[in-house]
């Protein structure tokens, strides 16, 4: 790797993201929940926080293009590119959206190795060396290097989860279009042991920030939100009840966590 500039050297200077990354207005009935949310993403990492069944996953799937909402307008980027406008009949198909995603259940392609899975969404066709480097870095950071040539069917749950997240991260970094896509991660750290989870959370946060890949993730774990130092959108029963920095939105959760720690002592 000597003699070549590392990919980090090629990152653009400055660390400011555009004022508005994504604007969502969404109404949708699914199961027993009637979803009615509106929010705007402005921070590098935003977490949709709420109990299960509150509609978080549906919001993510609507942004990715896997759900046709009853009523919605979703725009992204500084120019307000329209992804969905049900009134105007605009519905951009998933693969054409500036969005990359990993679902909650890791659907790894069974006919490929771990490395081939991670490489699936990499699009920098004209820069094979950079592609290789991004792949290697993702594999290292997600602790997958030793599994690279393994078939996916023998992996443990935690390993599968890491491959699934790594695959989406690689696809977001090596995005073929202009700028960087929004990365959607549904419970990305679920099923990992807590030590590894804490390590990966911090690592991914810093690394994706460096690459200027904005993230919208779903979680019901307050500790994870604090580690991410994220913007938090709290959802309950299909409605946005609060949005702001984690210290503010999850102050109550924080108090309770500290209480529990004190009691355990």
């Amino acid at each position: 790797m000597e003699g070549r500039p590392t990919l980090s050297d090629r990152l653009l200077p400055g660390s400011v993201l555009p004022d508005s990354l994504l604007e969502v207005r969404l109404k949708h009935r699914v199961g027993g929940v009637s979803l009615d949310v509106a929010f705007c993403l402005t921070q590098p990492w935003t977490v949709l926080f709420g109990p299960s069944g509150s509609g978080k996953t549906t919001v993510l799937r609507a942004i990715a293009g896997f759900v046709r909402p009853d009523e919605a307008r979703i725009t992204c980027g500084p120019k307000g590119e329209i992804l969905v406008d049900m009134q105007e009949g605009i519905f951009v198909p998933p693969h054409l959206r500036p969005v990359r995603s990993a679902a909650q259940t890791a659907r790894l392609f069974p006919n490929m190795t771990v490395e081939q899975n991670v490489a699936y969404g990499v699009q920098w066709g004209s820069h094979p060396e950079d592609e290789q480097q991004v792949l290697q870095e993702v594999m290292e950071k997600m602790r997958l290097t030793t599994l690279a040539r393994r078939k996916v069917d023998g992996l443990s749950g935690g390993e599968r989860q890491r491959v699934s997240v790594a695959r989406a991260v690689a696809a977001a970094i090596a995005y073929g279009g202009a700028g960087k896509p929004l990365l959607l991660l549904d419970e990305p750290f679920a099923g990992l042991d807590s030590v590894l989870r804490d390590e990966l959370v911090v690592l991914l946060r810093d690394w994706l920030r460096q690459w200027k890949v904005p993230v919208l993730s779903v979680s019901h774990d307050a500790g994870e939100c604090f580690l991410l130092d994220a913007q938090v959108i709290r959802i309950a029963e299909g409605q946005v009840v609060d949005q702001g920095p984690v210290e503010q939105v999850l102050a109550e959760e924080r108090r309770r966590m500290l209480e529990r720690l004190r009691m355990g002592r």
Partner: protein
Amino acid sequence: MDFEALWLTLRLAASTTAILMLVGLPLAWWIASGRGVGRAMAQAAVALPLVLPPTVLGFYLLIVMGPLTAPGRLLIRLAGHPLAFSFGGLLIGSALYSLPFAVQPLVAGFEAVDRGYIEAAAGLGAAPARVFFSVVLPMARASLLTSAVLAFTHTVGEFGVVLMLGGNIPGATRTLSISLYDLVEEGSYAAANRTALALVGFSMIALVVIYLLPSTRRSDGRQADVVR
């Protein structure tokens, strides 16, 4: 045994299988991912040869390909000769008659692929064609093989359509099953027995191949109905 008929049968079966793979793949994918009345109509049309007497299909093809109708006259002008009583006509008849045997295993195989995989690939930026070839098709490869083997063997075994449409022209339309019929009519039972045994052996081998294939399982653990 009539080796000319054997050779013709194998050529017909191979060509029919090739045509059915080309037509059947997109058709099966469309049926598997479609819904509503259009999908039901397509499924019914594909399954029709299963319930119709082959003579009905043969009769209509004979009419359509013959000089009595406008499409028939057009076909004759395009091909330079009537398609009925020729290898080309036989090929069209075989393809239509074996269509359900090629399409239905594929539909079952595609439907067994969890939608989550298709979404995972699309969420990584893959266009539908890439999703199909890199994810769906490899996951349904057992069904693909089943489909090809069934299309081939069913063509080898067909009789009614061939008789209606092709007649009995050595080298052009006389297949093994027709040859067997002739042998019995002539009273040559020993030769008929050899031909019949060849057909039984062939079908047995093909079926063993199908049942040796790794089974296609749905995500919910149920066995997909590959042969139905």
